[in-house]
């Protein structure tokens, strides 16, 4: 089976190589058969990727410990669920995942365009197959990257098992959704390259890939948030985001991808920012490759690194190649990318979109600066430095607040040129709500400046969005006579893009409310306790009731019981756990928490003595942290709403395509 898998990868390599070259020959010679065969090659590539992946799943499920990868990441005691997800637990498996997703996505993209985009498609295929070629070369030739490497002599009787911190549902979702996001952006990138090469620079390449962009964005959002959630509930250090280089690596493409999502709207509506859009998709795609690189280069130490592997230089080389090629191409086509319209006024929706973009890209570059600074500093001064959360917190907080403000203001401003008069009218109620919120918070005793600003801006933005929904529903009711609820429903349903977008904004604000609460007002206490003792944090007191210790095949477990009271009243019981895994010779803290909308009581048992029953506890109170997860869910729902198929929309799109085709604009 391992042989089958490896052979499939080799086949994939050859098919990819063919897929790079064949479309180019087809275009050069004008012979359509070459292009047709390239399309088939894409389907074939997906096919062998599926076969190779199936081979790895088979090895995992049959616990084939002669396979080095299986022996490294699973063991007989591991449940099926985690045995299967061990597929992407390590370097080679996760690269195989990339190949699988790339193959499937490329096949879907080719199928979607089997009757259209005929001129661009050959180049799209070629670009996607270059990426496929890169990964299959690494998988088949690089030491340590082959998921089908066989241990000489048949392998151990039992594997080394999965790191216990990865035995969590989040571990299953997080890498897959991140990769879905990463690979998803390769499609718009390939289309952008195709559009540049063929000089068909109308916005059709954007329209064709709009769904891909948003779906990739949705997956990146899920991946980032589930990663944070996983860190929070499983890694047990008490937080959800540490500005770790690999966290940053998946955050940066999200930032530029969000910027891209917004600025393409400007190109679609106003035919502006064409060059900017291409730069953004190039940047986003490069950041996804960079993200994949960071997790396996060992260049920057992080909780995530797969360690020093020899792959770093290859990724950097590939990245360099992409940048040189795409930027070169862009500059050669600059004169064709002139906008038809100009920005009219500072105070216009276009300007606020542009501001949004500058801020998001600015945030991405700031994060990149923090990530690369240690390397640059060492290269330039010879001093080694590290840059940690204090830097990122200090910079991102104020920028984030400005972004919140822009989020609120943008829908209130008209296109082209807003007069101060009509701006004032739309602006009045939400601004008042924001101001009242600020006054109220200060009156209630809040003194944390950033928190006051953040909550007030949240109130401002939420009421601005509410006004949009309300006003639209009101107008609709006037027009159609439906009652207000049905009016709202049909309003949203007929404008899924707009109201999906607004919903995403609501989600972002809810998430930021969660971040503000848990950062600004977190309370902590740590203490040693004996049975019967109490530890207090803020208004909460936790009493150590009992301890239970037991052993399984895999581990030794200490499980304490704490009853939690707030202001003397019972709130609940928590069972913090500390485990010790025999095979790995490693302890593990499993936190417990009581979670409500207003706060989490987060309890860590850092150490215990089985003889004396003494425990060392850390208890955190994290206000509003649940809104982070709620906000994330709302963001995803909003995204889904935005891309939900809409019959009227697709008819409109088809008509536009026809019109542009006739004018030879695509």
């Amino acid at each position, binding site marked *: 089976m391992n042989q089958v898998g490896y052979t499939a990868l080799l086949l994939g390599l050859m098919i990819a190589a063919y897929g790079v070259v064949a479309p180019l020959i087809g275009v050069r010679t004008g012979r359509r058969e070459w292009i047709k065969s390239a399309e088939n090659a894409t389907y074939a590539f997906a096919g062998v990727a599926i076969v190779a992946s199936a081979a790895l799943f088979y090895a995992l499920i049959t616990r084939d410990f002669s396979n080095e990868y299986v022996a490294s990441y699973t063991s007989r005691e591991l449940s099926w669920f985690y045995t299967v997800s061990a597929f992407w637990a390590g370097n080679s498996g996760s690269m195989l995942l990339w190949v699988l997703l790339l193959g499937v996505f490329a096949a879907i993209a080719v199928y979607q365009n089997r009757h259209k985009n005929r001129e661009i498609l050959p180049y799209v295929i070629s670009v996607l197959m270059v990426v496929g070629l890169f990964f299959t070369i690494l998988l088949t030739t690089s030491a340590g990257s082959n998921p089908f490497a066989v241990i000489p002599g048949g392998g151990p009787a039992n594997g080394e098992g999965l790191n216990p911190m990865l035995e969590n549902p989040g571990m299953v979702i997080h890498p897959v959704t991140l990769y879905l996001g990463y690979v998803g952006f390769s499609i718009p990138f390939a289309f952008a390259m195709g559009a540049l090469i063929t000089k068909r620079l109308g916005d059709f390449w954007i329209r064709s890939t709009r769904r891909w962009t948003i779906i990739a964005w949705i997956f990146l959002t899920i991946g980032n948030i589930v990663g944070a959630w996983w860190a929070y509930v499983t890694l047990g250090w008490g937080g959800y985001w540490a500005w770790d280089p690999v966290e940053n690596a998946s955050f940066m493409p999200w930032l530029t991808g969000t910027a891209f999502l917004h600025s393409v709207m400007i190109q679609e509506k106003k035919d502006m920012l064409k060059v900017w859009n291409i730069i953004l998709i190039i940047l986003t795609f490069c950041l996804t490759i960079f993200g994949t690189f960071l997790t396996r280069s060992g260049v920057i130490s992080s909780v995530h690194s797969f360690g020093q592997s020899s792959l770093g230089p290859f990724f950097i080389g590939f990245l360099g190649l992409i940048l040189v090629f795409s930027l070169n191409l862009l500059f050669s086509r600059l004169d064709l990318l002139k906008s038809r319209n100009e920005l009219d006024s500072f105070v216009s929706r276009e300007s606020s979109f542009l501001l949004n973009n*500058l801020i998001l890209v600015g945030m991405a570059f700031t994060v990149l600066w923090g990530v690369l600074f240690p390397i640059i500093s060492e290269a330039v001064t010879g001093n080694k430095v590290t840059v940690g959360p204090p830097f990122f917190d*200090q910079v991102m907080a104020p*920028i984030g607040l400005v972004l919140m403000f822009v989020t609120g203001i943008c829908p209130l401003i008209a296109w082209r040129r807003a007069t101060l008069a009509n701006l004032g009218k739309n602006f009045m109620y939400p601004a008042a709500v924001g101001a009242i919120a600020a006054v109220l918070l200060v009156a209630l005793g809040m003194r944390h400046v950033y928190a006051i600003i953040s909550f007030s801006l949240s109130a401002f933005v939420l009421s601005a969005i509410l006004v949009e929904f309300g006003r639209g529903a009101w107008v609709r009711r006037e027009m159609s006579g439906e009652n207000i609820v049905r009016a709202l429903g049909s309003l949203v349903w007929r404008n899924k893009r707009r109201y999906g977008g607004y919903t995403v904004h609501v989600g972002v604000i809810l998430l930021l409310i969660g971040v503000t609460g848990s950062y600004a007002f977190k309370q902590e206490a740590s203490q040693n306790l004996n049975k019967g003792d109490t530890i207090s944090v803020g208004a909460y007191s936790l009493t150590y009731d009992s301890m239970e210790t037991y052993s399984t095949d895999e581990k030794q477990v200490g499980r304490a019981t704490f009853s939690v009271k707030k202001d003397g009243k019972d709130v609940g019981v928590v069972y913090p756990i500390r485990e010790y895994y025999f095979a790995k010779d490693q302890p593990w803290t499993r936190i417990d928490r009581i979670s409500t909308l207003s706060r989490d009581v987060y309890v860590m048992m850092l150490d215990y003595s089985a003889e004396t029953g003494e425990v060392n506890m850390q208890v955190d109170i994290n206000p509003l942290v649940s809104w982070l997860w709620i906000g994330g869910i709302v963001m995803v729902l909003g995204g889904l709403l935005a891309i939900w198929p809409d019959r009227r929309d697709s008819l409109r799109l088809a008509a536009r395509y026809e019109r542009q085709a006739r004018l030879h604009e695509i």
Partner: protein
Amino acid sequence: MGSKKLKFLIGGLVVVGAIASLAFFAIRENMVYYYTVTEALANGEAVNVRVAGDLLNGTLEKGGIGDPIRFEIYDKAVPESTLYVEFTGVVPDSFKDDPATPIEVVVEGDLLKDGTFAADFMMAKCPTKYERTGADATGETSTSNN
């Protein structure tokens, strides 16, 4: 260039400039020097620095539950350079004193006048475990003091 375009260009530069200066100054304020044991000893007394070294086997002293732990780290390149560390905080799960598994350690804190290191943050990494059991977070675990 028309005055409108100029206005937008300036506006854009203002935004970018503000972000860039914020980032530039924040880095200077927040960067933490990262030394090897030898460099740290040569540098002398310091506040809020990081030192990387290997655990000197046989030197780990654990107190009671919740007490600070004490150990020595040395510079693999210059084995005579050793630093005595006292760490208060959450000990990473992968940290153990076992000659069979050498542990790389990074500690962050202050190098005191008496030449010992008072650490409040610590990361530990077992290099040999990487290739085999290296997964998203094996081998290197860290604790965070926010």
